[in-house]
């Protein structure tokens, strides 16, 4: 398993890749070649273990210090499948190392110790170890450690699958309720899809895409156009993946890619036509006081729309779930760290320059944090300016695994203030504007300006977010042309030409520093579709870049999709402040339309889930404290913008953290935006400082 692989994918990818690398059938080779990292300060034990592991035909790397091990893992994220660590080590506690690895790399970790006391073993369990071995370790015990790798991969894959093959409605129930839906929720959906994929290769493919070998399919504008053309040619009813694939005649494209993309597309269409249902949903969600759990509704709805890949939903759900506890969980601190949205910085001004700057930062961050897994490319078309993401105080700090999301752009904009700003644009650049209370009205301004530019200019999706806005716009512009993927950040804001609305997909990549542990960058992906244009849906590829967690960086990529619909799927990213392990997890990761995307999503989901739980809780308390006062003044100032924006977009929710920074801003298009119910909290709700507004209900 790829313990080291970027979070985005979940470890499985690498191992499969590895095995495949040999050119042998994976199944046959497995588990030989499993890349194990052994950490133990006792050289005698280390030597013995190494020998035993080699006897099992594993690929062993030994390390006698935890710090060394961590840096090895960080440098080479995809270099290992599993880690075995001693509990008692002089430089770092084994459990601490376990946590770090779990957060940053999400590799399976086995603890071992001469101590067999129940408490210690329990500690291992609670810290997330997948197994605990008592010394002296027998070789038999080591022989089947591969099971943990497979298991983990399987779960990840499931997550991805889920999003990828969302069956309208099926998934949602699952996703929504689960707190740790990532595995359980997925199981349901996933199982079925998994069955289809008994073939290990498929799994590997998925995994691979996330990590290495297989390049993800990036649903670029052109590709999507081809896809749509094929579908139209066949007739939407008769469009089956196989035939579409044939018609498209794109080398390297697999039936699975097409299938998942088709699914999303179908959902999207459905959403277009079934808008009426949504509004009510949305309203509900909006108005709903934050529920502790994110209403499944949102996710489902989103999922239904197809915008949100199953995975995203999962993430959202996870996020939502996480959120519910924390509600406002947006950890400001995290945000700050993250840079994601530079919104915190006062410099979020709309000034283009700034945005660019921000973007740059973001990009840098993104890049920085981007784990290799990120397949920003996925974001084809979605360029998200890191900045824009940054702007959005994306509360969604999802752990790195952000798989590119094709469809939904989740924009999380947490900015209480930014709200108005953000979505002014018809294109709805979701660029989350995170306005820190510091007084960033700019966002709104910026947004307005940006927005306007956007109108009709599909290319620039300016995220209203102050900083990101400019940036995003640049980023956005590409809808078609850019497939620039921000490394690490998968927020490509892509504005499809002609689509004024943005369906930014914000992918946040978060690099989590070992310290940070929790910071999770999450990219909310929003799909803002404009009615305006039926732009190539390509934008919806949201790539969630593998979420890398950097406490300092959040890569948020907003992907603007020029989607046809204006629906904005907002994924809630929860920003969880990291207080020591609490991280915001925004799970909105959307997986790009293709299956590859799911890998990431899964990862993120998982991470998010765990993160969310921790962080969310933490945060909620904190957030509640903050006086939202400052939020509002600015906020209202932006009302106009907001209204304008809303009109175009629909409603949006903004989640403010205690400081008044918008953590999550969810723009919804006219079509109902599915937001987790939790996220949408009535303005009155101070816990989250989350304001949800529907078009009609813009608070003034």
């Amino acid at each position, binding site marked *: 398993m790829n313990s080291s692989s970027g979070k985005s994918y979940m470890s499985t990818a690498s191992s499969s890749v590895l095995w495949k690398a040999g050119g042998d059938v994976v199944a046959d080779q497995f588990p030989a070649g499993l890349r194990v990292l052994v950490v133990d300060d*006792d050289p*005698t034990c280390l030597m*013995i273990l190494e020998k*035993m592991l080699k006897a099992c035909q594993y690929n062993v790397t030994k390390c006698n210090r935890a710090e060394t091990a961590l840096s090895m893992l960080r440098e080479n994220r995809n270099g290992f499948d599993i880690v075995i660590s001693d509990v008692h080590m002089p430089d770092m506690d084994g459990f601490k190392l376990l946590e770090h690895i779990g957060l940053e790399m999400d590799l399976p970790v086995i603890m071992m110790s*001469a101590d067999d006391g129940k408490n210690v073993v329990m500690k291992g369990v609670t810290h997330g170890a997948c197994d605990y071995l008592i010394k*002296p370790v*027998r070789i038999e015990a080591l022989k089947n450690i591969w099971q943990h790798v497979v298991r983990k991969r399987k779960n990840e894959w499931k997550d991805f699958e889920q999003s990828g093959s969302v069956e309208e409605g099926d998934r949602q129930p699952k996703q929504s309720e689960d707190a740790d839906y990532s595995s359980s929720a997925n199981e349901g959906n996933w199982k079925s899809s998994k069955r289809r994929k008994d073939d290990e290769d498929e799994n590997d493919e998925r995994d691979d895409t996330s990590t290495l070998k297989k390049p993800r399919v990036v649903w670029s504008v052109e590709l999507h156009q081809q896809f749509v053309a094929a579908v139209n040619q066949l007739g939407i009813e008769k469009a089956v993946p196989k035939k579409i694939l044939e018609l498209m005649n794109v080398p390297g494209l697999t039936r699975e890619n097409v299938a998942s993309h088709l699914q999303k597309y179908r959902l999207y269409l459905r959403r277009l036509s079934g808008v009426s249902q949504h509004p009510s949903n949305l309203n509900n969600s909006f108005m709903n006081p934050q529920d502790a759990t994110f209403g499944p509704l949102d996710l489902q709805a989103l999922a239904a729309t197809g915008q949100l890949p199953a995975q995203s939903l999962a993430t959202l759900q996870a996020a939502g779930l996480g959120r519910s506890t924390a509600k406002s969980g947006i950890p400001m601190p995290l945000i700050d760290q993250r840079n994601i949205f530079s919104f915190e910085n006062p410099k979020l001004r709309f000034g283009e320059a700034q945005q660019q700057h921000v973007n740059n930062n973001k990009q840098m961050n993104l890049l920085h944090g981007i784990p290799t897994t990120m397949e920003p490319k996925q974001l084809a078309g979605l360029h998200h300016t890191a900045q824009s993401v940054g702007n959005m105080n994306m509360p969604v700090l999802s752990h790195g695994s952000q798989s590119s999301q094709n469809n939904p752009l989740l924009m999380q904009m947490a900015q209480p203030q930014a709200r108005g700003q953000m979505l002014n644009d018809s294109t709805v650049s979701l660029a989350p504007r995170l306005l820190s209370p510091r007084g960033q009205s700019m966002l709104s301004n910026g947004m307005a300006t940006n927005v306007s530019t956007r109108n009709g200019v599909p290319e620039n999706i300016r995220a209203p977010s102050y900083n990101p806005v400019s940036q995003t716009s640049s980023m956005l512009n590409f809808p078609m042309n850019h497939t620039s993927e921000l490394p690490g950040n998968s927020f490509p804001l892509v504005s499809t030409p002609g689509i004024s609305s943005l369906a930014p997909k914000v992918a946040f990549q978060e690099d989590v520093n070992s310290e940070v542990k929790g910071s999770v960058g999450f990219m909310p992906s929003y799909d803002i579709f404009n009615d305006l244009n039926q732009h190539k849906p390509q934008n919806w590829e949201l790539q969630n870049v593998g979420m890398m967690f950097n406490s300092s960086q959040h890569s948020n990529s907003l992907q603007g999709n020029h989607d046809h619909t204006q629906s904005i799927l907002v994924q809630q990213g929860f920003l969880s402040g990291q207080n020591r392990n609490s991280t915001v997890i925004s799970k909105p990761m959307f997986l790009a339309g293709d299956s590859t995307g799911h890998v990431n999503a899964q990862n993120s989901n998982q991470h998010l889930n765990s993160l969310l739980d921790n962080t969310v809780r933490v945060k909620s308390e904190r957030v509640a404290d903050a006086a939202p006062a400052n939020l509002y003044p600015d906020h209202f100032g932006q009302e106009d913008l907001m209204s304008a924006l809303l009109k175009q977009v629909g409603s949006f929710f903004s989640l403010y953290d205690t400081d008044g920074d918008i953590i999550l801003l969810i723009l919804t298009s006219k079509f109902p935006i599915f937001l987790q119910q939790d996220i949408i909290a009535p303005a009155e709700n101070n816990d989250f400082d989350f304001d949800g507004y529907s078009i009609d209900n813009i608070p003034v």
Partner: protein
Amino acid sequence: MESKHVHQQIAAMRQSFFDEEVLDEKFSQLEQLEGKDNPNFVEEVFTMYFRDSTAFLETIEQAMKTIPIDSIKVDNILHQLKGSSASVGANKVLKEVNKTRQVLGKGNLEGTKAGILELRKEYDSFKAKLEPYFQV
């Protein structure tokens, strides 16, 4: 033949270790791990073990002399010793380590001191037995 004689000697020594429970099955496992490309594996392991354990014991003995006795430190080292001894199959040594740890855990410092003495004895004798074995 000399070599035959030597082999016999080795075998006898080895057998006696097991009989006396100086070594346990872990040792056999280690032997199994030895292969063509690593013929001296067991010896290497034991060399390392002896080196580290000697240092550990000395540290413990030092710690026991200081006042107040840092029992946490002692316990940690004992834990280490436990792990290594178990890994190499040093049965008796392991037992002594465990005994001493228990006593220490109860707060019986005097008993701990005695236990450590015992441990030291056991360890030395173990080392004395194994070293010639490897040399042969």
